[in-house]
């Protein structure tokens, strides 16, 4: 087993979830700010805003989840396993 290859795979996996989480975090923060603004301005619309916000956040979060899936694939089900001799 090549140690350098293994290390590079681990770094790749960590980077994929790290960068995806970075972007998704910014996006979710933006969404939350908008929702807070909306509720502060019009407290009566709290129910509708909360539902929409949770839905939007789930969509934002799925971007991070894609990164997580890539990380899992790299770590547990690497498609190039045979070629790398792992």
């Amino acid at each position, binding site marked *: 087993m090549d140690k350098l290859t293994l290390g590079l795979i681990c770094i790749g996996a960590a980077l994929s979830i790290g960068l995806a989480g970075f972007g998704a975090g910014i996006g979710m923060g933006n969404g939350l700010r908008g929702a807070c603004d909306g509720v502060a301005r019009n407290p009566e619309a709290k129910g509708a805003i909360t539902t929409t916000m*949770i*839905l939007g956040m*789930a*969509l934002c*979060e*799925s971007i991070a*989840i*894609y990164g*997580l*899936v890539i990380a*899992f694939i790299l770590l*547990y*089900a690497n498609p190039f396993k045979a070629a790398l001799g792992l």
Partner: protein
Amino acid sequence: MEHPILFISLILQGLGLPVPHTPIGHTLLEKLCAPYMTYTWMVMIFLVVVPRLTMGKLEMVPGSGQNFWEVTIGGLMDFFTENLGEKGAKMLFPMMATFFFYIILANMIGLIPGFMSPTSSLNITLAMTLIVWVTHHVLGFKYHGLKYYKHFMGPSKALAPFMFLLELISNFARMISLSMRLFGNILAKEVLLGVLFMLAGAFFAPLPILCLGVLVSVIQAVVFVLLSLLYCAGSMEHAH
């Protein structure tokens, strides 16, 4: 990732049936005994038997069991009517409500030790997504006939070829995003629970993630059903 203890797999092994140790087995019997298959059957049996037992006979003054189901089904129906309109909601209700109950139960069952979420396997989520994807195209053809292609052509004639390409890609991306979202969320929950349990299980480290898992299970079920409703609504309405 292999789960440490799965009750149904242990029982099947005790009965002498082959349980695969890879994600998918090699022979047909191994494929049928894979954990996500057996737990799907369990969820299905639960969904058939428990409503029968709790609902009992329908009465004018509902008891506690019938009350629960009336609120659940009524709430779902309102939710569908908001997005699809009266007629479409009635048509799609059986399929989408089944998806909702199946997904929410399949997600929740992974929180109990000794059980796994069938939805943490890509096979299950991709199968459900394929059903939704085919259904929304069939609905499009049913409502618009061959003029359904106008949905893919965009607003202006000059840009139609480019828009067609873009719409085609985005349409196929639905298949990936819808299945990957559910699969990734539930797999992440399961793996996180496993890792935390191994790190500090004696100090109740997985407890906050268990609470978060309940939230994620409900939200992902709602998101899956809502997105499939929106896809169906989009193919049923007139092209812009």
